[in-house]
């Protein structure tokens, strides 16, 4: 039902602008060059070099966009080969034979193909390829010479680990594919390429492991990706929003990561990874609630530590969502539930605070959000200053000014720390949204409101699916066998099977020998 919204604007086939470009290539070199220039409106980074070969009998041309190509490659393997070799060696006279000869033997670029339309050319040249023209032939040679400046592989900033690989994805799609390939050297590892963005024409690669993944998931991912129709997909977030199951849910139904090891592990669990050119964030689908609270490091440290970290994270998730709401409920409704001595001292600290607990909590929580936002946007050194100024000065001053009680400062601070100790930023933010809802519920109905909210949250979760996989599995539908990698992170030797809920083909993951 929800998906129908997208299906409505499924591919519209006609587009006037594009039809102009699908014209054929002419035999005349100058005319072709002119067309190319006209189409791109003669940008000054378009490099066109005309020259002759074979005793000046044949006019040739090379075109590429400066900066997008590997210029060494163009110079050494294209220009040099063509000009030097053609001078030494007798070549056929006929243009078509010459073209074949050059295509087959002379150009020493590995990735090479022929193009026949202007559309082919424009796509290739804008993607960093070099075009080789020869007068009198209505074909061109397209050589993949993609290169130019890219960021080098660095440690991922959003997901640092203490123990584990330091490699992170970069903006370059090819590098990213290579990074995944380095982890899984299996012939069944598949990379299926799509093109997204009517204007931007970016490459999108879906990666999965044939023989492990359930084909239904691949089909579903494929179906959803086919529906994408937008001008540009600047970041994988666009893709995520377009293909996720419910865009109204605060919970991320697709995970994103900068870590190749996490992607590789997911692929081996029978999931798909979606890589988009131009972003280091790779999507992993399907995702379940349990997945959102996992970090690769759980597996790299010994299992006892891993389990403890997991349990800690579940506790953190609980604190991140419920603590301020519980505090409001206890302080404003159920004072009898607070142990007597504590109740008296909370009452003492709240003496003179002008607002009810709810307003106080809202005030502090919003301040917290502002601080977080300010800290993220500013350069690191200033960001830290904001943290100190905000955290210490405002907290301290607010308490001594009698605006908030010290207990509330503790509650909000603890809550913020807990929410940012979650491994994924998008999950942390989702939980912070829920927090506000719960605070409102607690302010109206106290504990009763909290429990109703909790029930509603559960109703939402059990109805939520990610690519057909229920979001709450393996809790419900219950797969007890999968619990060994949920809150508990069992020893590697004990996690013998891939998650049942993924319905994988190849179930066993260790000790296949026996």
């Amino acid at each position, binding site marked *: 039902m929800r998906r129908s919204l997208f299906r409505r604007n499924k591919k519209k086939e006609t587009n006037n602008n594009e039809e102009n470009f699908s014209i054929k290539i002419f035999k005349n070199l100058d005319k072709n060059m002119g067309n190319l220039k006209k189409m791109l409106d003669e940008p000054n980074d378009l490099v066109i070099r005309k020259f002759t070969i074979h005793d000046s009998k044949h006019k040739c041309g090379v075109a590429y966009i400066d900066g997008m190509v590997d210029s060494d490659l163009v110079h050494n393997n294209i220009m040099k080969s063509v000009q030097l070799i053609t001078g030494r060696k007798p070549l056929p006279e006929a243009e078509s034979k010459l073209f074949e000869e050059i295509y087959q033997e002379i150009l020493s670029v590995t990735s090479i193909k022929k193009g026949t339309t202007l559309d082919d050319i424009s796509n290739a040249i804008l993607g960093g390829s070099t075009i080789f023209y020869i007068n009198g032939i209505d074909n061109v040679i397209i050589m993949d010479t993609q290169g130019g400046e890219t960021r080098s592989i660095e440690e991922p900033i959003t997901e640092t680990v203490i123990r584990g690989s330091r490699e992170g994805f970069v903006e370059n799609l090819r590098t990213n594919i290579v990074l995944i390939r380095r982890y899984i050297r299996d012939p069944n590892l598949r990379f299926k390429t799509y093109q997204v963005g009517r204007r931007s024409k970016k490459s999108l690669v879906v990666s999965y492991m044939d023989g492990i993944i359930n084909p239904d998931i691949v089909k579903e991912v494929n179906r959803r990706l086919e529906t994408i129709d937008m001008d540009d997909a600047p970041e994988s977030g666009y893709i995520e929003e377009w293909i996720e199951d419910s865009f109204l849910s605060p919970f991320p139904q697709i995970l994103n990561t900068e870590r190749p090891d996490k992607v590789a592990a997911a692929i081996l669990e029978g999931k798909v990874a979606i890589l988009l050119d131009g972003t280091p964030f790779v999507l992993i689908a399907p995702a379940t609630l349990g997945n959102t609270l996992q970090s690769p490091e759980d597996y790299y440290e010994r299992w006892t530590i891993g389990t403890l970290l997991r349990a800690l994270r579940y506790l953190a998730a609980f604190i991140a969502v419920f603590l301020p709401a519980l505090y409001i409920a206890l*302080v*404003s409704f159920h004072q009898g539930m607070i142990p*007597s*001595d504590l109740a008296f*001292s*909370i009452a003492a600290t709240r003496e003179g605070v002008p607002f*009810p607990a709810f307003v106080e909590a809202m005030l502090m929580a919003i301040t917290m959000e502002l601080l977080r936002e300010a800290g993220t946007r500013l350069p690191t050194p200033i960001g830290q200053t904001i943290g100190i100024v905000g955290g210490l000065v405002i907290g301290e001053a607010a308490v001594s000014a009698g605006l908030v009680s010290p207990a509330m400062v503790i509650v909000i601070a603890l809550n913020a720390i807990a929410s940012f100790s979650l491994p994924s930023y998008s999950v942390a933010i989702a939980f912070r949204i829920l927090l506000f809802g719960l605070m*409102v519920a607690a302010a*109206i109905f106290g504990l009763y409101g909290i429990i109703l909210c909790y029930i509603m949250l559960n109703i*939402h979760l059990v109805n939520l699916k990610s690519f057909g996989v229920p979001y709450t599995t393996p809790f419900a539908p219950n797969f007890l066998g999968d619990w060994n990698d949920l809150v508990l992170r069992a020893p590697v030797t004990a996690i013998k099977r891939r998650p049942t809920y993924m319905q994988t083909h190849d179930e066993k993951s260790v000790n296949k020998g026996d």
Partner: protein
Amino acid sequence: MNNRLLILLCCMIIMLSGCWDENDIEERGFVIGAAIDLAEDEQGKDSPTLTLTNQFVVPAGIGMPGGGGGEQKAFSNISGSGESLFGIIREMSTTVSRAPYFEHLKVIIISEEVARQPDLFGSIIDLFIRDQEMRREIKIVISEQNAQKVMKVEPEAEQLPIMYMNDVMDNTVKAGGLLEPVRMGDMHEYLLEESNYVIPRVYSLDNRIKFKGAGVFRGKSNRLVGNINDDESVGLNLITNSTEGGFIKFEINNKLMIYELKKTKNTIKIDTKDQDNIKIDITIDTEGNIGEMYGERSLLEKDFLREIEQKVNEKIELLANNVIKKGQEELQLDFFGFSDILKQKHYETWNEVKDNWDQGDNIFAKSTINVTADSIIRTTGASDRVKDQGSE
């Protein structure tokens, strides 16, 4: 889409409804103790007028660690009089800035005067069981003097008299072997089952609170009928098997010795063959160690230990017999729980005797009760002797 609409609808209705029960913690007047006395002037009326004194916590007086406090008292006692406690509380709410809030009520002190009134005690308790704010752990004590007075003591180490009293009560039970306080939950049981009960008595001394003995109540009329002293309460504890600690003081060779109780266990056997002379056999097994001795004999001699154990037994039997004697002869009331045992284990007999157990014919007073004690000294402390036996 419809699910979402429903959530929205849900949220909106909730939002529109507002908050009825919200009441911030600093607006609550925490009552931690309540004292009930007879109002002085109007005695002799048909329905007695009561005075209820509530001890409120003044949070500002407790103060934050490091910051101020101290100048202000941490509590305030506010009294009101009237015929119904509920009415008094409601009236009190109109005179104080923070409405009384009873969820942290710890102790109720009832003066002996009130307890001696016919049919009053049970009715007082009613409010404290019926009201939702009350807990089942509220402790009930009887005050020898005016109950208000007990709440006015100003202990040195504690800020709140009731909290102080609460702690003292625990210590009294553990260290002194005195009676455990009666909780509201137990009280509910006593009232419904019409069993007899004992409630510890308290009195105030300058700025201290002391527990002394207990008041014995007749279950049928819920009226205080007599008192037992400290020794008798130790004896009672030994019989009802509710000793949590305490000690037995006795003399051996004219030298004082203290036997510290560590563990007690007793068995009560009731022989109902002859209904006019029911035989009750109580065996009290105790374990403990020597806490203090004034003599110089070595405790490592087996004979001496036997002798000590013998003395301990005699003392325990004496304590138990004294309180039984008081129950059978003076008060003619079974506050030992024998009736419960009869009911539980000899149901037929109980059905026959229940109307004449400790009233009417008073079979209880005529029954024969035997107490046998069996004590074991487990350890003698860190040192056998502390003083030398002296030159011989």
